[in-house]
């Protein structure tokens, strides 16, 4: 955690370092925008998926990294939005933009309900409770066949005609992702984000200083749920299909693993994690159908050997080298 404050503790000031950072960001964004011109179609859709999952991972990191609350229900919130969008566009035959709005609202409502229950708990209890809550969503999607389609799920074109072209859709996701990332970045640097960090370190101390910690956690949770829901809406447009596996525990686990691999509490680590895990998923599934096994093994190995994540591990390695 000490290494993280060095990198993100300083907000943007008019220093040469800040200028350099703006320059780098612009360069990376330009490179990302060029992806559909350079890479063939399949890779563009893979890149789109990475951006969507990066959003999910960052939403998980908002809670896990900054508020110290590891959630296992974000996959369910993500999937709720996906289900709502798919239901509204296919079964109800509504406008995709309206469906997207409703999906986002649904994710926020589910998030608020979950938050109201979960913010009083900490540590393992928080994890347990969010796990159980996420499972309830999964159970409902599995059994409420008249609405959710049960195991068969819902299928159909849900994307607005405007975004039908894969490259256009990629740029749209990129733009949404940049705006959402900026919003999250602003949030964690704001006094509100610092208060969340304070709660992570010591909730009782923050409370005695006069912060309404429960309210902070609630708002943080709901904001994080909104981000997960946004990712879920984009996923519905991307995939045109939803089934119970979209809201299953494995989805939350995937998001959390991306955060852990990228480094908890680094926000942008979620992007790195998303890229790594999606690449791995695609490479692995090209020669084995046992992706779930790989995911599980990855989790076990990461927990044993690199609990601070790959980015965190590299950073501490570099730090050790720099200052012997």
């Amino acid at each position, binding site marked *: 955690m000490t290494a993280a404050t060095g990198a993100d503790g300083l907000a943007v000031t008019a220093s040469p370092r800040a200028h350099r950072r703006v320059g780098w960001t612009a360069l990376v964004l330009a490179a990302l925008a060029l992806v559909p011109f350079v890479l063939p179609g399949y890779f563009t859709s893979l890149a789109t998926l990475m951006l969507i999952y990066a959003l999910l991972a960052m939403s998980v990191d908002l809670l896990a990294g900054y508020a110290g609350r590891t959630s296992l229900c974000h996959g369910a919130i993500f999937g709720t939005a996906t289900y709502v969008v798919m239901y509204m566009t296919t079964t109800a035959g509504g406008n995709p933009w309206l469906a997207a709005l409703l999906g986002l609202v649904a994710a926020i409502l589910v998030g608020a309900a979950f938050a109201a229950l979960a913010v*009083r708990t900490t540590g393992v209890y928080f994890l347990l409770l969010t796990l159980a*809550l996420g499972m309830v969503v999964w159970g409902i999607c599995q*059994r409420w066949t*008249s609405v959710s389609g049960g195991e068969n799920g819902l299928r159909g074109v849900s994307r607005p005609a405007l975004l039908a072209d894969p490259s256009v859709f990629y740029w749209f996701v990129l733009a949404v992702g940049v705006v959402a990332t900026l919003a999250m970045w602003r949030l964690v640097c704001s006094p509100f984000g610092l208060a969340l960090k304070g709660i992570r370190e010591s909730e009782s101390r923050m409370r005695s200083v006069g912060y309404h910690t429960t309210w902070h956690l609630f708002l943080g949770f709901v904001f994080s749920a909104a981000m997960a829901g946004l990712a879920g809406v984009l996923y519905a447009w991307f995939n045109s299909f939803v089934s119970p596996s979209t809201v299953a525990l494995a989805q939350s686990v995937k998001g959390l693993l991306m955060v*852990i691999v990228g480094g908890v509490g680094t926000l942008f680590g979620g992007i790195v994690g998303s890229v790594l895990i999606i690449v791995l998923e695609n490479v692995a599934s090209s020669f084995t159908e046992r992706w*779930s096994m790989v995911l599980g093994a990855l989790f076990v190995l990461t927990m*044993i050997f690199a609990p601070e994540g790959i980015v965190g591990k590299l950073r501490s390695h570099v730090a050790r080298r720099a200052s012997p």
Partner: protein
Amino acid sequence: MSLLQFLNGLTFAALLFLVASGFTLIFGLMRIVNLAHGAMYLMGGYVAYAAASASGSFLLGLSAAVLAVAALGLVEQGLLRFVGGNELRQVLLTLGLALMLNDAALVLFGGDTFSVPMPAALQGAASFLGLFYPRYRLFVLAAGLLVLVALWLVMHHTRLGALIRAGVDDAETVQAMGIDIRKVFVATFMLGMALAGIAGALGGAFLSLYPTADSEILVYSLAVVIIGGRGSLAGAVVGSLAVAMLSTYGQVFFPELSYFVIFGPMALLLAFRPLGLFGRTT
């Protein structure tokens, strides 16, 4: 109608108790939330199915399940040694293990639904009070009660039980008094796994076995522990009864949303007692 539902709830509660008692003991004593517990249950069921169909003996299937799951539990404990002390890492490790076990079960047994063959004596229905009720379900109820009594005796009348109860409250002090708490940990973990194995074998005959059964059982166990509080036998009993009754009656009144019904009281309880009915702070 109502007596039938009541019996259904009661027998389901007995099964839930078998799964959740092991879960809550491990959670209470070792602070390990074993998210692989559902997968262990499923594995136990599959092993019992394979052994019982091959040998034709239900009892043999049951023992095979207990042994296999206890052995898996030992492996899990070995892995958990690497991340000792850190609660979150432990939980996430068991989660990874759950995914692996579930996938391994899918490889070994495929996606079909199986039922552990019942012994002939327990097939069919018993009639009493003007009601025909499956014998096997009554047997599960009896088994649940038997295990409850046995666990109570172990917990309150043996040295191991005293150590477990002391460990739930304060493991460090137990260790400071010259007792090797790690041996108690291993024993408890094996006990919990054995219970999961038994539950898998018994549940595999009337709930049947399929690839997502492990998640369902895990959610029920979590609900039991959240309601009852960790590490408490009484909490496991009350929690199992509450969850089983709610889910049974929920299935009658809201067939498609029965999952949702167990969630209401859980929410209510958490608002007033975040540690569960019988839970205590460290």
